[in-house]
């Protein structure tokens, strides 16, 4: 489905980002991954992804740093040439009730999840506009749609991603650049592993589909949105949440 395409995925060395990278590579795309550090597990995942026969390369960049994002974008363009797909997946949580959140808890979450998405999009948009084609997929969250106690900072950042997604879709639709958001619900990743088994069971019970999602559930939607099958879809927010936000 993505043969001959090149995708850039932020936060692509674990969790949902890694599942998207694997899915894209298996479907024929070359993949540039952006991560905050070069860990042993990140390197191992790159090696595993490269076993698909696709070109895979890891770039270290803090998406909070606009200058670093610009440099990394230039490096990726130099290495891969044309970029077709951007997945803004890098995200963090710093949960807690609002009075207990420190300045850093709020700034870090907004800076990575929302501003990071804006910086990276801004950097790659230029190429997309020039080539009159591009697909941007932003990872939001159901929490950005429905809010969540203990996640005011995270919910605000993810709701911001939705507004950003719709605005980019409107601004660049005429240049054949599509921009959509995915809103995952509870997906079993390192991010949700912090929950106790009991809490996880409780959550699963309340979901219409009765289970937590898998990163692959999200990757399947990302693949569809990145492919030409979705060529008339832009500005959308699609939940992958087992019916959580219905």
């Amino acid at each position, binding site marked *: 489905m993505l043969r001959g395409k090149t995708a850039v995925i932020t936060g692509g060395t674990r969790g949902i980002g890694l599942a998207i990278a694997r899915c894209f590579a298996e479907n024929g795309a070359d993949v540039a991954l952006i991560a905050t550090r070069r860990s042993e597990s990140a390197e191992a995942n790159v090696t595993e992804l490269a076993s698909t026969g696709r070109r895979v390369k890891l770039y270290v960049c803090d998406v909070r740093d606009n200058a670093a994002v610009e440099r990394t974008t230039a490096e990726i363009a130099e290495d891969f040439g044309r970029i077709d797909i951007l997945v803004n997946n890098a995200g963090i949580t710093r949960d807690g009730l609002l009075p207990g959140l420190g300045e850093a808890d709020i700034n870090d979450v907004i800076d990575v999840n929302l501003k990071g998405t804006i910086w990276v999009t801004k950097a790659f948009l*230029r190429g997309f*506009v*020039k080539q009159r084609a591009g697909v941007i997929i932003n990872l939001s969250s159901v929490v950005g749609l429905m809010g969540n106690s203990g996640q005011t900072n995270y919910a605000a950042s993810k709701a911001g991603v939705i507004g950003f997604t719709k605005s980019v879709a409107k*601004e*660049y639709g*005429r*240049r054949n650049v599509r921009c959509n958001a995915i809103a995952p619900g509870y997906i079993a990743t390192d991010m949700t592993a912090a929950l106790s088994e009991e809490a996880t069971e409780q959550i699963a019970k309340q979901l219409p589909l009765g289970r937590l999602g898998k990163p692959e559930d999200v990757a399947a939607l990302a693949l569809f949105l990145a492919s030409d099958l979705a060529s008339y879809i832009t500005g959308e927010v699609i939940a992958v949440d087992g019916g959580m936000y219905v």
Partner: protein
Amino acid sequence: MKDITNGIIHIIAEYLGKDESELTADDRFTDIGLDSLDIMELVMQMQEEFDCKIELSQEITTIGKLAELIASQQ
């Protein structure tokens, strides 16, 4: 300055598929069929061409005014 104006006219003519002789420094962008997105795209190209940082404002509405801006920022 004249070089810059000619350079801008060259880029815009190419972009619009027009002959350079059809464009003058007094032409308003909107009158020659350029919208805000077109101008943004052209400015990105001109930044590379003229090796300068162009900070566009609402007052830059003609080829001549853009040439003045580029000359001042080069």
